[in-house]
């Protein structure tokens, strides 16, 4: 019973991907978000990225916390299990899920309230564990679902609908992630699908924690003059750090990539992401350069977007723990239980 039609991506809807699915096979139930909410655009970008990558729907697990943003996993890929959990607790729940079954693709959708306030500690530790998942922050600078309080990402001077100005310095998930040793950091804008879809695809392929900060305006509570997360403000202040086109393993079409100042980042599975750097010489694999670049742009009021940092070398959770290559849930019970004989033997030592 939504009030608004789903934003549809303009493309021939009959087109099939490699596994024979149409884009609409990646859709979910109808959105009940406000008409025009940035989060719906992100949903559309996710649908497209998954479709383009020919992800098998049931091999996806959609994780979220609580918030308008956290509702969105219901709006994509009906054929995937979803878990709309508790406010701020998605990172640990996703960690447990991933620990149990590393074979699935985990996409977490969170909000700035969910991730940067109540769930901040968990987010930091998921980064530290380099949990393999795509972690999207649909960042609107407000608590949408509870009607417009400032979130921790609200910029200094940003005004609430009530006219009050935020005065505390915002938490920038990208700077934070960098300081914690994150292995994949990117920022997009819900209104710019051309940039977002390839970012999402790269994030999906990343073998580790891929955090994507997506500026996703709340049209109801944070899209007015004075807000620094409004459509208008974002469009005016957006700077593209890198433009990229993700090339999946099976169909690497180098011809589509721009030419000047390119840099290729080889992902862990051999797939290649190529960047067109907007600032001359920007290299998302050079940590200190990235740090310097982000530092320079922090607080300038300019939003740096693109694939900002990537390090494919960091071991992810399972590598750190030497678990099997397949899901732990697949290990047969017979392998797990040492049996009565061993129990008797071990008790010899307890006498």
């Amino acid at each position, binding site marked *: 019973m939504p009030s608004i039609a789903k934003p549809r991506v303009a493309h021939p809807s009959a087109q099939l991907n490699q596994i024979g699915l149409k884009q609409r096979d990646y859709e979910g139930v109808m959105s009940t978000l406000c008409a025009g909410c940035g989060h719906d655009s992100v949903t559309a970008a996710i649908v497209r990225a998954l479709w383009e990558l020919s992800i*098998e*729907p*049931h*091999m996806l*697990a959609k*994780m979220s916390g609580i918030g308008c943003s956290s509702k969105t*996993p*219901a709006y994509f890929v*009906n*054929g*995937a*299990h*979803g*878990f*709309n*959990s*508790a406010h701020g*607790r998605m*990172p*640990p*729940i*996703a*960690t*447990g*899920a*991933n*620990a*149990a*079954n590393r*074979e*699935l693709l985990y996409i977490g959708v969170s909000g700035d309230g969910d991730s940067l306030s109540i769930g901040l*500690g*968990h987010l*930091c*530790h998921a980064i530290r*564990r380099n949990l393999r998942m795509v972690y999207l922050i649909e960042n609107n600078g407000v608590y949408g679902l509870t009607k417009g309080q400032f979130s921790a990402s609200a910029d200094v001077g940003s005004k609430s609908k009530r006219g009050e100005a935020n005065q505390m310095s915002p938490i920038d998930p990208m700077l934070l992630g960098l300081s914690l040793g994150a292995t994949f950091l990117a920022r997009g804008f819900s209104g710019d699908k051309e940039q977002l879809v390839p970012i999402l695809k790269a994030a999906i392929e990343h073998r580790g924690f891929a955090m994507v900060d997506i500026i996703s305006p709340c049209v109801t509570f944070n899209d007015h003059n004075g807000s620094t997360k409004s459509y208008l403000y974002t469009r005016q202040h957006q700077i593209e750090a890198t433009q990229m086109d993700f090339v999946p393993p099976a169909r690497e079409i180098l011809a589509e990539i721009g030419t000047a100042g390119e840099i290729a980042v080889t992902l862990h599975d051999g797939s290649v992401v190529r960047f067109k750097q907007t600032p001359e010489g920007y290299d998302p694999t050079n940590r200190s350069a990235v740090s310097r670049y982000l530092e320079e742009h922090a607080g300038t009021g300019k939003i740096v977007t693109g694939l900002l940092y990537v390090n494919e070398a960091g071991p992810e*959770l*399972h590598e750190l*723990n*030497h*678990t*099997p*290559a397949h*899901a*732990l*849930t697949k*290990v047969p*019970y017979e*392998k*797990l*239980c*040492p*049996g*009565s004989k*061993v*129990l*008797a033997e071990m*008790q010899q030592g*307890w*006498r």
Partner: protein
Amino acid sequence: MEHHVSARVNDFAMKLANVNGTGSASANGLILQAIFRMGIPVSGKNLFPSNIQGLPTWYEIRVNRDGHVARALDYDLMVAMNAQTYDRDVHEVRSGGYVLYDSSWPLDGSLLRDDVHFIGIPFAEICNEAFAEPRERTLMKNIAYTGALAALLNIDQTIVEALLAESFSRKPALRDSNVRALRLGSDYAQKHFTCPLPFHMETMNANVGKVLIDGNTAAALGCLYAGATVAAWYPITPATSVMDGFKSLCEKYRKDPETGVNNYIILQAEDELAAIGMVIGAMWNGARAFTSTAGPGISLMNELLGLAYYAEIPVVLVDVQRVGPSTGMPTRTQQSDLLECAYASHGDTKHILLLPANPGECFEFAAKSFDLAEQFQTPVIMVSDLDIGMNDWVIPELKWDDSYRPNRGRILSREEIEALPRFERYMAENGTQVAPRTLPGVHPKGAYFTRGSGHNKFGNYTETPAEYQEVLDRLLKKHRAAASFVPAAVIEGRGSEVGIVTLGGCDAAVREAVEILARRGIRADFMRVRAFPFGPEIEAFLNAHETNFIVEQNRDAQLRSMLTLETSISKEKLQSVLVYGGFPLSARHVVEQVVTQMDQTPVPVGARARS
């Protein structure tokens, strides 16, 4: 003045007063193990401080040929190795008892008691002479008093030496100095005092088929055998050793011999909210997962326990209780998390509790928790405590039935999903209150959206009262249905007008109390509750007794409260015996309170008359 204790074989209690962090814990464990190997029923209770080094710590050993090894409050012997606490330690010995102390320094005359025997052995002096290194001197003092005790109490010295040899099999030099210290102590005692003391030990044969094990290790074993692959935790006393145990076991038994990979993962979470979240995620995804914690952790897990309850996700949680509220006394025991565990979370919630009494049940119930959690798709909390979890207990060897296969409950297979017209998540199957679930990654038709917000039986979001209520009501019925599947209460005796009801680690003390009361002419039947929801046998027992004394280790009569709320029994039938200072229960506590209450309150006439 001469004071005598009657000569008793294999029936006495002693207390050892030490400074923590000085190695005394291992020496005391060594004594316990030696007595165990002598085939004598024995218990050891570690009364230690929440501190790493330098504070007073006590260890109590009770030896009882009849098997009564609950904490005794009458100490025949005090091993006073901590000058800071001489005062109270000397005070605690029973009249006619003995104090063994380090006579390297003279004992303050004010400490002397006329009715107690003092045995001074200059342990420090002896060790300073025999050993050069300061660290060694400190450590060996403990072994020296062990040696003295061997002589005084007639502990089989060859057993002690064999134990040392086993411990230091790869460090012969260490073994040698230990044996040396042991003999120094023993020789000194032999030479200067009449050995053994009137109360002492003689070899028995009571420990055949038994082992010495603590409840936390046993719980870890249960999780291992149940096939848990994911464990998540945050360190907290007294639950930490559950995970330490699980880790050691996994390192030994869960490395795949073919591939060398770990068939398990242990996640040290950032806090308890995360730990329970990880378990929820893993269980949602089809793994067997668990966490262990203590009171503060349970408080923090409240919100997510409600999520698991309402979204019907299995969870296994081990709560090793300590003294509350708040930080309380982290190294002391209590049973005060019962209400918090049973009704954890806001809204209407009820959880399944398993209440083990000893390490044997920790093993059994830990394994059972997984079956129940998966069968009923809900949190199962095994509520243990510090006394059970961190002390070594003598119990019958653990057995495992190799034909056991996990009861995964109703998880739909790929084929079953395929065959369905449509999967509807919260639709209970005929005759049961459980709704089959599907796992991620199996089949797109099995996909559904798990949520802690209002949902109807189809698994869809709802805000419609009737739809919401239908699901919530089924959860209550499901909880009740579990009553037939949880461990039944242990009941002993029948026909008395008085019932004595208890739970968990109070078992031994209450059984002993029942015997003592019987000798005093008060006949009582015994019941130990082992799980919540309560089975019909619990209601029947309470009903069959005019007065039921509910013995538990908390201030607010939490088990009695649950029995009041969750059975149809009149609360007039339920009286309370509450002991909650933080040390394990003793029969004396129970006997005294029961007798006082029976004197005070109008008691069924028959109870005294009939015995």
